[in-house]
Structures are given as structure tokens and as C-alpha cells.
């Protein structure tokens, strides 16, 4: 199932999907998800999409649970997810270092021409999880999924 706001990656690749369990006795399916940002307005759509998909697959009584711990971070995005983001023109986030380690700010590569000569236009973008960047080499603006 694709993410309703970033329609090139699945909720599994984004790390939003935590678990899918089927009760062996009743056959009831429980799906556990976690939000990227606390206020992410796509969560209601994601819940509805999951219920619709499971109903279509023969599970009309599926339950969707939302958990907040452990908190989502961009490290939950899979390698396949990162590659798909980059292919869609969204620069994927750098890996967040372990707690207690100071992260170095590495250059964000332009997903269109690959140049590291980029600059941040605004740290807040079209969705809660993205920042707006611009490439100084090819002059194109692009989205960057910011490290969290």
C-alpha cells in the first residue's frame, strides 16, 4: 500500500507499518502503524486505506492500532524506500547517528543531477516530513525528506 502523500513508496518502506498479525482462532487481522510526525494529517487516510485493502482481501473486521513507542525516525525508511524516494526527485535523509553521537551535517545531494552544491530554501516543506531545497548546479528546486 502506497503512502497517500508520497505516492512512490509503501507504508512498509517508510517504516510506518510496524506489524500485521492474524489471530489464529478468530482469523481477525490487527495492523499496527506509527506516525512519522505526531500531527501527520495523512494518518486517517492511511487507516482508511488499510481497512479498505483488508476488506477487499476478505478481512472486513480488521483492526488498525496506532503506537508511538519506539518513536519513528527516518532510520526506519528501508534501502528500497530511499532508492525510490531519490528516483522520484526527493532527496532521502541521512542516517541519524546513535544517541549521544553528534551528527555531522553532510551535504544533501541533488536528486536530479547528483550535485552536492545544494542549499536549503526552507526547513519546512509541502508535508510535515519534508524540507525545501535548491540545487546550485542545475538550479532546480527539490524536496528533502529531513532526518528525524
Amino acid at each position, binding site marked *: 500500500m502506497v503512502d497517500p502523500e508520497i505516492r512512490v513508496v509503501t507504508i512498509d518502506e517508510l517504516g510506518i507499518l510496524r506489524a500485521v498479525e492474524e489471530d489464529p482462532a478468530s482469523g481477525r487481522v490487527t495492523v499496527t502503524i506509527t*506516525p512519522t*510526525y*505526531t*500531527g*501527520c*494529517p495523512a494518518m486517517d487516510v492511511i487507516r482508511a486505506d488499510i481497512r479498505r485493502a483488508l476488506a477487499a482481501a476478505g478481512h472486513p473486521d480488521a483492526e488498525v492500532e496506532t503506537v*508511538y*513507542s*519506539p*518513536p*519513528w*525516525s527516518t532510520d526506519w525508511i528501508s534501502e528500497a524506500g530511499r532508492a525510490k524516494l531519490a528516483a522520484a526527485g526527493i532527496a532521502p535523509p541521512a542516517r541519524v547517528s546513535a544517541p549521544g553521537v553528534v551528527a555531522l551535517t553532510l551535504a544533501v545531494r541533488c536528486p536530479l543531477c547528483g550535485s552536492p552544491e545544494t542549499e536549503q*530554501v*526552507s*526547513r*519546512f*516543506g*509541502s508535508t*510535515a516530513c519534508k524540507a*525545501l531545497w535548491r540545487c546550485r548546479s542545475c538550479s532546480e528546486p527539490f524536496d528533502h525528506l*529531513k532526518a*528525524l
Partner: protein
Amino acid sequence: MNGPFDFTLGLADDALIAAQRLAEWTTRAPEMEEDIALANIALDQLGAARLLLSYAGELEGAGRDEDALAYLRDDREFRNALLVELPNGDFAVTMAKLFFLAAYQVPLYTALVDCADERLAAIGAKARKESAYHLDHGALWLKRLGDGTEESHRRMQAAVDQVWPYTHELFIADPAAPVDPATLRPAFDQTVGAVLAEATLNRPESGWAPGGGRTGVHTEHLAYLLAEMQVLHRAHPGAQW
């Protein structure tokens, strides 16, 4: 002193009222990127408010959910600090409010991660990373305006002076709370001191310290904000998108 319900409600109302005030900037910010930034920060605050309000409702055990707490309380029942209900003022005043709130929320949410309450710990772990972005954003604007032109410096200093007295209420001691707000003051002072110095702004003298928000005694501004925020739900009980 306050129990876990009042403490959680205070944090929830801080986030909810801050979100409502910030949302007033939508389509009115000085530039498009800032418009998007303020709306995003408002959305983060609203997200934290929803989690905290839901949990407060469970702690109370009276059957009130997040909507009942947000839309069906009058001003005397709100527990937010006065800082967040103050009018937006000019852009500098909004940035001063945003910066001081974030400089308090970052150490607050960080401390919640290690508190004994598992639900508050999970909310803190989630919200602190978002608040770090808010703090960064506010600090950048304080530096840009404070260390900018003569006019921007004058207005940023005036905004800091105007808002400063309202920061003291955030740190009123409550030793029984999951996190005693008084313990957050050193981290706040350190952040504020460093940013104000870099922004070439003076740190105001501490004197007048208005309060009352945590016990439901608010400024005249809150009731107007609530009237706008609650009108739809009160006119159409149970209305949903």
C-alpha cells in the same frame, strides 16, 4: 499540588493554544516559505496536543475524549500558560513567543522521556525531535532580526522585552509532577542566553511575572481565541469532516 491529570492537561493546552495562534498566520506570513513553516509548526503542536488531550481524558476517567476537552471547556477550565494565548502581535512578537516556548518544550519533552509515566515518556520521545526543529527555526529568526538592520533589531528587542515576563510561569515549581517544571529552568536559561547573545539582543531583567494560566485564570485574549476555535463544534455537536 497538581495531579497527573492537571499536569498533562497543562502541557496539552500549551500545545493546543499555540497551534491555534500559529494557524492564524496561515496565508498572512511575510513570505511563502514562512507561511508553510508556521503552518507546519502549528501542525506539530496540534499533533502533540491531540496525544496529550487523549491521555488527559483517560487519566480523568470521566469519559471526555480529545474533542470534548478541546471544544467543550470554557476559558476557566484551560490550563495553558499565558504565554501561548497572547496575541500574535507583529512577526517579531510571534518569533519571540515561538522561541521561548520551544526553549521550554525541548527540555520538557526530553525530561519526560525518562519520567515514570510510560505514556508521557512515549509522547516526549516523539515530540522532542519536532520541538528541536521549532527551536532551531525560532533561534534563526531571532538572530536574523536581532543582528539585522537597526529597525529589525529595535522591533526584535521590543518583542523579547514584551514577552519575557510571561516565560516565568512556565517554570513554577511542582515537585509532585512527573517532571517538576522548575528543573527545566537551567536548560532554558542556557539556550536563551546563548541565542540572545548571538542575536545581539539584551536579556531583559526579571521582575514582573504574570501567571494564573495553570489554575485557569487567563488574560482577556483566551476567550476570543476559544470562541473562534470552538464555534463549529458547539453549533454542530459531534460534527466531523
